[in-house]
């Protein structure tokens, strides 16, 4: 399978969207384009498994390399392993759902879908590139669409949030850039991930570049104390924008922390692992308690995202194979779950025109489909067995428990305890929204429309596929984690 097609399809879709004359055509073009991309991702998963089953053992599959800037030794080097395939699957599910959830966007429809597809192109490119320069390029491609999506189509204090998000993410990119330049200059003037992984990067460089890269990517994935863009950005964004931000964009950071920082610099990873664990435990706890205080549904999900993404970083910081597998599974699971959560919030907000939990109540009577979804994502978020959240978090805890010392144990126990807090805020929010007496003015509300149902079903398929039969994801991811672990030892 030629991986270039994964970048070309979004580009063609985006250009086709610009050509379309009326809004309906725009929507359908975006939907068909992202649908094709979903099929391609499933095809990629199938082809990947086939190749592995036929004994293909090389680290990266479907590799291809085209030289771009010869004088800098930069090339368009593409390739995937199990981790990237998992992330690509996640992206394509969220993109389809996001496009479907934006069916009612009437303001500058064409531009809206163009930016959505451009953003997804950045994510696809990021996950398949094996050249750090190209990877950085795609990381930054995704920043401006986010800025415009929030700033133009957002709500509330959108300008402030958009600015904050763009500047903080650019700050993260600047750190990543410095880290990459450090790697490039001290390790043989190459940006190639595979080549870099084969040479011993000087320990001194690792001590400087690891924190730069980890914090830089960490800002994208809400590393404490750089998480402050998350609540504002998510709550101000339009529905699809929040879905993309939490479902895809935050995962770019986690993937970068794992693939670039931890994989390439094992000594650095060991040196700084404890700091990572402390910070991510704080994020898990702080995020959970901060959520307790929120009354706005979007803020609830945004702060709980801080908490859940803390698990990703915790898994990476634990540096065991199982924990890293769990971290990747948590990325996929949280991406699907939070995208669905934001979709449901969008559906509710569109009808009730409020996101305040206290102003709702009894909505289960008028919109059974939507509220049932809310229940399901709520349970997924608090880690109920049978749904994806449980599988991922459980794997991280199992991996973390492999460390026998007190420090790791304490961190793990604390992280486990946060689940209780999660249960408190989720059950309270869901209960207040769904149960109780129905307000007069909500009597006439209608349930989800076809596009919303379809979006929800797409995401539900993902959540259930991981929750009920986690084996396939585990098998997909753990060989990739194994490779990283070999380098770490």
């Amino acid at each position: 399978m030629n991986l270039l097609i994964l970048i070309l399809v979004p580009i063609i879709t985006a250009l086709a969207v610009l050509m379309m004359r009326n809004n309906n055509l725009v929507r359908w073009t975006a939907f068909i384009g992202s649908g094709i991309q979903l099929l391609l991702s499933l095809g990629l998963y199938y082809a990947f498994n086939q190749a592995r089953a036929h004994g293909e053992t090389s680290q990266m599959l479907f590799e291809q390399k085209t030289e771009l800037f010869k004088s800098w030794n930069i090339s368009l080097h593409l390739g995937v392993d199990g981790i990237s395939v998992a992330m690509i699957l996640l992206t394509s599910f969220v993109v389809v759902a996001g496009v479907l959830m934006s069916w009612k966007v009437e303001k500058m429809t064409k531009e809206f879908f163009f930016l959505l597809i451009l953003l997804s192109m950045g994510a696809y490119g990021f996950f398949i590139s094996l050249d750090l320069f190209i990877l950085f390029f795609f990381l930054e491609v995704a920043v401006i669409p986010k800025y415009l999506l929030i700033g133009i189509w957002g709500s509330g204090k959108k300008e402030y949030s958009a600015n904050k998000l763009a500047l903080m993410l650019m700050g993260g990119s600047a750190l990543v850039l410095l880290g990459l330049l450090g790697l490039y200059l001290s390790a043989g003037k190459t940006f190639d991930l595979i080549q870099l992984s084969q040479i011993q990067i000087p320990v001194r460089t690792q001590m400087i570049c690891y924190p730069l890269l980890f914090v830089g990517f960490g800002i994208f994935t809400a590393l404490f104390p750089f998480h402050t863009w998350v609540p504002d950005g998510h709550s101000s964004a339009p529905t699809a924008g929040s879905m993309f931000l939490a479902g895809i964009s935050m995962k770019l950071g986690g993937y970068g922390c794992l693939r670039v920082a931890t994989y390439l610099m094992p000594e650095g990873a060991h040196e700084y692992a404890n700091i990572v664990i402390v910070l991510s435990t704080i994020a898990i706890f702080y995020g959970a308690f901060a959520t307790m205080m929120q009354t706005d549904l979007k803020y609830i999900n945004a702060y709980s995202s801080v908490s859940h993404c803390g698990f990703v970083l915790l898994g990476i910081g634990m540096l065991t194979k199982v924990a890293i597998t769990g971290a990747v599974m948590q990325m996929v699971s949280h991406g699907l779950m939070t995208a669905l959560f934001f979709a449901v919030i969008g559906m509710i907000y569109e009808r009730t025109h409020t996101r305040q939990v206290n102003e709702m109540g009894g909505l289960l009577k008028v919109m059974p489909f939507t509220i049932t979804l809310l229940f399901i994502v709520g349970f997924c978020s608090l880690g109920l067995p049978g749904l994806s959240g449980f599988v991922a978090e459980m794997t991280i805890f199992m991996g973390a428990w492999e460390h026998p010392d007190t420090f790791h144990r304490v961190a793990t126990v604390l992280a486990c305890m946060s689940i209780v807090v999660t249960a408190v805020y989720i059950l309270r929010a869901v209960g207040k929204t769904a149960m109780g007496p129905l307000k007069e003015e909500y009597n006439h509300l209608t349930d989800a429309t076809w596009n919303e149902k379809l979006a929800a079903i797409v995401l539900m398929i993902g959540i259930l596929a991981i929750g009920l039969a986690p084996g396939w994801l585990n098998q997909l991811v753990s060989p990739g984690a194994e490779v990283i672990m070999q380098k770490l030892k």
Partner: protein
Amino acid sequence: MNDFFILMKPELMIVAIIFILLFLKLGKGLSNNSLLLVIQILLLWNFASGFLMNATGHLFNDMYQTNAMMSLQKNILNGGVLLIALIFTEWFQKCEHLSEFFVLMLSALLGMFFLISSGNLLMFYLSIELATIPVAALANFHLDKKVSSEAAMKMILSSAFSSGVLLFGISLMYGTTGTLNFAAIPALLDGSALQIMAFVFLFTAFAFKMSIVPFHLWTADVYEGSPIAVTSFLSVISKGAIAFVFISTLYKVFQPYHTIWYSMVMVLSIVTMITGNLFALRQQNIKRFLAFSSIAQVGFILVGISSNSIQGTTSVIYFILIYIFSNLAAFGVAGLISFFTGKERIDDYKGLYRTNPFLSWILALSLFSLAGIPPTAGFFGKLFLLTSGAATGSYLFIGIAAINMIISLYYYLRVVRAVFMDTNESPVEKITIHPMTRIAFIFCGAGIVLTGIMSWLYDSIKALVN
């Protein structure tokens, strides 16, 4: 004699166009519109022929030298002038003294060509004057506006001052080395105090022309007061030419002083970036805003210059090529809006997208390119400057440059936000764009997007650099 025509082809072409314009002016037969069309065609022909039959060699006892890299640099400037002639079509059509305008502009361009090709300090001084004095006359081209005269006055006084400094440097240099020839100077540099002082004076003259902080104070006022076509010529073409010469002078002639000028360039670069950025944050007038942002861009060019390597030269040329597209597009949009509505404040741009989507996209694209955001070419340009600077330089320096990229993003986004997000009760009305202008904008837009993606361009520039 044959050599003369082949080697000096770019200069002779410009001289020929200047003479054609003068004859056309004598004839008085042409209306402004058709004269402009003739000029545009001539400039297009000039630009196209700039790619052909470029030779390497020197003339007049090494006073004049040329090679493939210099031909490329000259042709980049040719392209920039062509774009200016296209973008401001409607302003030129209303312009009272059209042929004089272009005679002056092309004379300045001729000066820059000689500047790039100069192989001797005297030649260097003459051509830098030729490149400056006509521009001062151009700055005064709004004959009925007081600010325009003020701008011209400021420009001519500051240039005179910098010329004085330059001449002083040249005479000291001659006194200590006994030669004016670029090729002979490096061997005679012995590091005596007087010689270093001469070098600092020469360096200062460059800093004046490139508006490097602390020699930048004339820039914003001149940019604001001049007609916008002149402003864009000053900020793009003039600055580009000086940067080309600056880099080759430092690398070739003053290579023995590498350690000295490295620290000078580094300090000035940091100061320039920070000052340019901080002042740009507070500007309300779009021309002043672009002026300060272009000062900050010079700081980034200095990062590339500090690298003292072939990669440094290449990335500076590459960056300036991209900078021409981006800055001309930005100035073009600002100029068009100012010409039709007289609005120059950033607040007036609020809601521009509703009335002028095409102009808004071009403006956004150029600002993103100036800020260095992918997928625009500015991303590659800036990154290569930083990478080549990091290859030989201090890491902290590159860190400061990276922080400045974030600051600059903030103010570029301020304009984007005004254009796309803010609402306005009386937005800029719909502007009908002249076809020529539209072509130029599309060309700029394509340049901004494609220069980065066509990666072989960088490699082929590098092949020309020697």
